[in-house]
Each structure stands twice: as C-alpha cells, then as structure tokens.
C-alpha cells in the first residue's frame, strides 16, 4: 500500500466516523459503573446494554467502567467539572450525599416498577426515589449444625433468633471447647465500610443507633446513650474474654478461618456463602442475626443505579434503568456474581435463591431483617466515627469516652453543614 492510498483510507474512515455519527438521530447516554476488572459483571451489564440499544431506536447507552476503589472520587471530580454521565452507579449509603449535593435527580419510573423490590434495593432521599438496585446483600451467622448440636446450642430461626444472653452463652460454650482459636469471627480485618455495614445493625438491635432517626440532627443521647454504652461494654468484653479476634485480625484468616476450623462462628455476607457450602455441605447453616432486645437486624442497600442531575436526557436514562430492573436481568446478575436478586420473582429464577436453593435463606434475611444505614448525607462522617469508636473500644478505650467523642464529631459535622437539609 502506498502512502497515498493509506491517506485516502484514513480520510474515508474519518469521514465515516464523523458523518456516520451525525446521520443517526439517536441520543447518546453515558453510564459509569464501579466494577472494572470483573469480567462476569461486565459481560452481564454489556448484555443488558445491547438488549436495550436493540429494543428501541431513540437512545444508545455506552458504558465506562472504573475500579471500585476510585469510583467515588471519579464521580466527585466529574461533578466538580460538570462532566457527570447520564446514568450513574451509586452505593446505597452514599446516595443521600450525592442527592443533597445535587449530583442526582429523582427517578421517574412507572409506578408499578418498584412494587415488589426488597426495601434495601430502593434508595430514598427526601421522600423521593433517587436510585434502585438490581440486588442486595445480606449478612448471617455462619455456623455448623454438628458443632451446635454437639454443644447443645439451640439452632435459631427467623421467628425466634438467639437472644443476647443465649448468643453470649453460646460463644462462651464454644470457646470453652478449646477446639477453636476464637468462637466468633466478626471480620475485624475488613476495615472501612464493613464496620458500619456489619456492626451498626447489631447496635440497633441493642436499641442504640448512630443518629436520632426522628430528626437526623444529633447523635447525642443515642450513640452515647445507655443502650449504646451497654452494647459497647459487651463489644469490648468480646475481645477482653478473647471470644473474637481483635482489629489486627489477619486478612487471610478472615477469608478462610471459618472453613479451616479456626473459628466456630463467622459473621459474614452472602458473597462468602458458596465456599462455605462447598466445604461443609449439609452441615452448613446460615443463621439470622441475634436479637439484642429491639429486634434482629442486618444492614441493607448495595450498589444502585440513578440519574445524574446534569443529564440532558433524563427520559432516556430512566428508560434504561426501568429496562435494566427486569426480573431476568436481576436473576442473571445473581447467577453471575452471587448477589441477592432484588425481587421474589427474580429470586425464583435463580439457582441459589429459588425456594429450596442453597442460599434461599439470605433472601428471607434480606427481606425480613434488612435495615438501612442512616439515609443522610452526614453518613460519610458517621461511618468513619463509628468505625473508629468500635475499633478503639475493641482495643481497650473507655466505652463512654469513645462514644462521646464520636457523638461530638458527628454533631459538629451536622452543624457545620447546616443540618444537611433536615430540620428546615
């Protein structure tokens, strides 16, 4: 090929690219997603996008992926630069912050669209739905039937979970057998969001909370109230009595300790369920959270889709989201990456969550026990303060002082932000 021919080819290609785009009247919709690097997730999402693009002729959705660790920063940077995509993917507890900062606009889905979704998969801020998830996640006490029976420990049910005394006694009994390094693996190795996600529901179960949910304006008397202090005392005693590994737990032990038999019980999520089932089969149990007095609760809300405030085509963005939350896609995601599908109909279509399926219990946990982390923009600070307080308490800090410090920081932050839109 001569240089001249090459030039012609390049020019023709360039013209095609320019005019080819202009000829079609389709509007382009950009979608940002947090799951870069996960091949399965990408395939499923691309499938949905292709189906959507083929199903109508008004819009074309294009996908851009980010690694999870830098996804939130990318959105914040894009928002500052006014370059947000049309459709964004947002983690449940982060959503109110983005909605408050006007990164997002309320969804405009048809009324029946969210009818039988799990409560944790719907993101509400200021009485309006801003985001919806294709899945949720759930946490359970991982246990072995044979171990519980050998130690005459009652197997709890959703209707009758362990009480606080029962749970504590079970831990002491299991530790007493001497067969385990620790009776309970809480996952303290997983710093960051795991703490508020996994442990704040336990605090709620003990009648405490991270914030006064009536006003969302102060944590005073709630996070440092009697109930929370009682929970903190018990939390500290878990480590003092060496019933659970402390904050220096090895990450590898967290991943395999329960399967290796180092821990008798493990507080872990549905994403870790399949390896445990493989290891223990019929003997494996996924038990509901204990009830510390105010009901038994677990964290809810995972990644969800929403429409950015800057979108020039909100109708198209909403149309895509409505298209994506069909049961078949929910089921496909669940089969692909093991998460809990957001509707019962989709659950019935999956291998693991259909009735009688190995993980069906998680769907029940999610719909019965799911409890949202405080839906307020102040959550970012609450989450960090809560983690710091629990880690400090585990390492021997005075319980009341640690919780007071968290309350002061949370309240000061809420004040500095003019109440985050509450109490106006």
């Amino acid at each position, binding site marked *: 090929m001569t240089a001249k021919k090459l030039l012609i080819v390049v020019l023709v290609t360039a013209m095609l690219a320019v005019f080819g785009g202009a000829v079609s009247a389709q509007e382009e919709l950009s979608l940002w997603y947090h799951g870069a690097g996960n091949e399965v997730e990408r395939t499923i999402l691309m499938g949905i996008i292709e189906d959507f693009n083929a199903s109508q002729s008004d819009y074309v959705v294009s996908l851009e992926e980010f690694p999870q660790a830098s996804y939130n920063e990318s959105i914040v940077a894009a*928002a500052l630069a006014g370059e947000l995509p049309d459709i964004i993917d947002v983690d449940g507890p982060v959503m109110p*912050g983005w909605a408050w900062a006007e990164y997002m606009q309320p969804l405009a889905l048809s009324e029946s669209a969210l009818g039988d979704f799990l409560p944790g998969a719907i993101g509400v801020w200021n009485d309006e739905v801003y985001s919806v998830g294709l899945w949720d996640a759930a946490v359970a006490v991982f246990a072995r039937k044979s171990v519980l029976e050998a130690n005459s420990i009652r197997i709890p049910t959703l209707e009758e979970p362990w009480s606080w005394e029962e749970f504590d006694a079970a831990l002491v009994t299991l530790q007493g057998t001497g067969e385990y390094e620790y009776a309970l693996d809480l996952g303290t190795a997983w710093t960051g969001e795991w703490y508020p996600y996994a442990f704040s529901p336990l605090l709620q179960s003990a009648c405490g909370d991270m914030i006064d949910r009536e006003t969302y304006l102060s944590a005073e008397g709630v996070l440092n109230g009697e109930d929370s202090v009682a929970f903190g005392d018990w939390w500290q005693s878990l480590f003092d009595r060496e019933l659970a590994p402390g904050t220096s737990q*090895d990450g590898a032990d967290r991943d395999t300790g329960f399967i290796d038999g180092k821990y008798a019980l493990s507080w872990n999520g549905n994403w870790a369920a399949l390896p445990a089932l493989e290891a223990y089969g019929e003997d494996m149990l996924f038990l509901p959270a204990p009830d510390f007095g105010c009901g038994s609760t677990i964290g809810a809300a995972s990644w969800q889709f929403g429409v950015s405030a800057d979108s020039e085509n909100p109708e198209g963005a909403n149309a895509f989201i409505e298209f994506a939350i069909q049961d078949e896609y929910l089921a496909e995601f669940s089969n692909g990456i093991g998460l809990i599908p957001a509707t019962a109909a989709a659950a019935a279509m999956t291998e693991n969550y259909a009735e009688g399926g190995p993980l069906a219990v998680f769907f029940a946990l999610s719909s019965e026990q799911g409890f949202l982390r405080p839906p307020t923009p102040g959550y970012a600070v609450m989450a960090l303060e809560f983690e710091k307080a629990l880690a400090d308490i585990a390492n021997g800090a005075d319980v009341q*002082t640690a919780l007071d410090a968290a309350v002061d920081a949370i309240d*000061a932050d809420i004040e*500095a932000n003019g109440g985050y839109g509450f109490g106006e």
Partner: protein
Amino acid sequence: MASLQNTTKPSGLNQDQHEALVGWLMAMPVIVLLLTFLIVPFFMAFGMSFTNQRLISGNPTEFVGLRNFQDLLTVQLLTLDPLVDETSGELLRDEAGNPTYPKLRDYTRDEETYPQYFRLQEWFSFQRNNSITYVLASDVVFMIALFNTFFFVVVIAPVQGGLALLLAMMLNQKLPGINVFRTIYFMPVVVSMVVVALLWRFIYDGSNGVLNTLLATLTFGGFKPVDWLANPQTAMPALMAMSVWQAVGFHMVIWLAGLQTIPTLLYEAANVEGADWWQKFRFVTWPGLRNTAVFVLIIITMQAFGLFTQVDIMTRGGPVDTTQSVVYQMVQRGYGKYDISGGSTISVVLFFIVLAISLLQRYLTREKN
C-alpha cells in the same frame, strides 16, 4: 540568508536582555509546574482554611473567619475539687480510699451551664493537692496526632541520621566488593513505601509474623509472641523501626558523598600527628561533614513530619490513636469526611510548624564567625 541572521539577533534587545529572556524561557517549565502544583494550591489551602469548603455539599461555601482554627486548636484547663460530704465536711472516698471527683461529662456535655467546656474532650489530666486538673481540647485526635508526629521526628532525626552516618563510614573503605554492600543498604529506598509497609505488616503479624517467629527461635521458644501493630505500647516503635530501615540508605549515600569530599591529605596529616580513631573523627571527619549534616538533618525532619504512608497502610492511626499523625488526619478529614476546609486548616498549621522548625535549625546551625 538575511532572514536567518535576523532571527538569531532579535531587534531592540541588547546582549544582556537577550540572555535574560532565554534564561526565563528555559526556567519557564519548572516555574509553571511549581506554580500550579505547589504555590497556587498552598494559597488555595490557606484561603479555604477560612471557609467551610466541602468536597461534596448542597450548601454554598461561606467565609467563617477563624472558626476552623478555633475548632482545631482550642485548649482549656478545668480543675475539679474532690467531692465533700455536705454534713461532715469530709472528703468522700471510694473503696480504695481515693478522693472522688464530679464527673467530667457533666461539664463537657452541658452547653447551657458550661458553654466554655462544651464539646471539649479530655486530652490528659494530672492530680495536685487532692484536686484534679483536666487539659481539655476541642480536637483531641489532632492534639494526639501532633504529639505523635513530634515524638516521631525527635526519635527519627537522630537515630536515622546517626545510623546512616555509621553505615556510610563503614562503607567508605576501599575493600573488594564494597559496592555490593552499598547497593544492599540502598535497596529499600528504591522500593515504594507502600510495598515496604505491606511487607512489614507480614513481618509484624501477631500470630505467625516473621519477627515473632525469629525471636521465638532465638530464645528457644521463650519469647511470647507480641502483636506488634495492635499493641498500643509497640505500635509506634514498630513504625519507627520500619521507617528508619526504609530511609536510612538514602541518607547514607548523602553522608558518603560528604565523606568523599574530605581530602585524604588531612587524614594522612592526622596519622603523622598520632591521632587515634576518635580524634580523627572529632577533628577531621565531623568538621568536614558540617554542611552535609545540616542538609541531612533538615531533610529527615521534613520527611518525618510528612509521616503518612506507613500509618495509612499499617495501622490507620490505631490502636487507640497511638499512631495518629498530622498528615494522616489531614487526608482523613479532607477526603474521608469531605471536610476540605478542616484538612486545609491542618495543612496551614503544619506549614507554620515546619517553617518555624527549619528557621530554628538554620539559626542553630549557622556559621559562627
């Protein structure tokens, strides 16, 4: 040809002006980089520390005066007298016979009665003549971080500098294969601090870490394993040891360069005079290293004040704040808590501290003529 000549000699500029212009042009890339990434951000941080700027916010940014500095730096003293039995006038004592005091919480969480103590927390306390004095701070975590950082600097500067000098003197000999040793000691400097910190986490691991295993082997099992990074007593020393190990090679090379500028003639003269090892070090080597010493000291101090990576990766400020550092708190606030103004305030405070210390160091190490 005529036009070519014109371009080599611009009209209206004499030789000096021309040279100055070329000089500025050549300096331009660096000046632009320094301006955009150092000087402008510094003034922005300075400006933001007087506002309530957030990373994510639905509220407009407002000027708040010195509030950020007040929230960060307020320190108050509160002295409490022991409780007295009202009828007998005697001190109320607890079971162990110690005097008892009113609860600190009653003072710090009561905005109406004691607005001056509201939301202050106990930093530390001391007892004198039966009464107890609390030092309260509005931001105890920052105060602890500041104290920890100073402690880190005070230990690191002499230990790292001294060890580096020792290594440099050992390696400043003409022995076969000495370059191999120089390379070995320099190696950790080349490895990223993030990687070093991750590796040392395995070394310090409480259950099956290399350090515990090694100590157990050396003492024939007599050593009881320590969870180095989770124990408040050992966490900071562990970080220090690892930091020294990582950076000592860099300063060793600087010392080495300094040592090689000292003329061998002086050592030969000292030998003729019959000077012993110490005298040679005291009167030849050390005076010859004067400028190097000033440089090494200032560099180590600056780097130590920037303590961040090790903390972020190995301990996240724990256990119970024993490894909090100023820069870690700066990042934690700015990006973790979306509080850009709070992070900026810390960076301004840190700037003045480091500035004051380097001015002091310059003054103390000045040439005394």
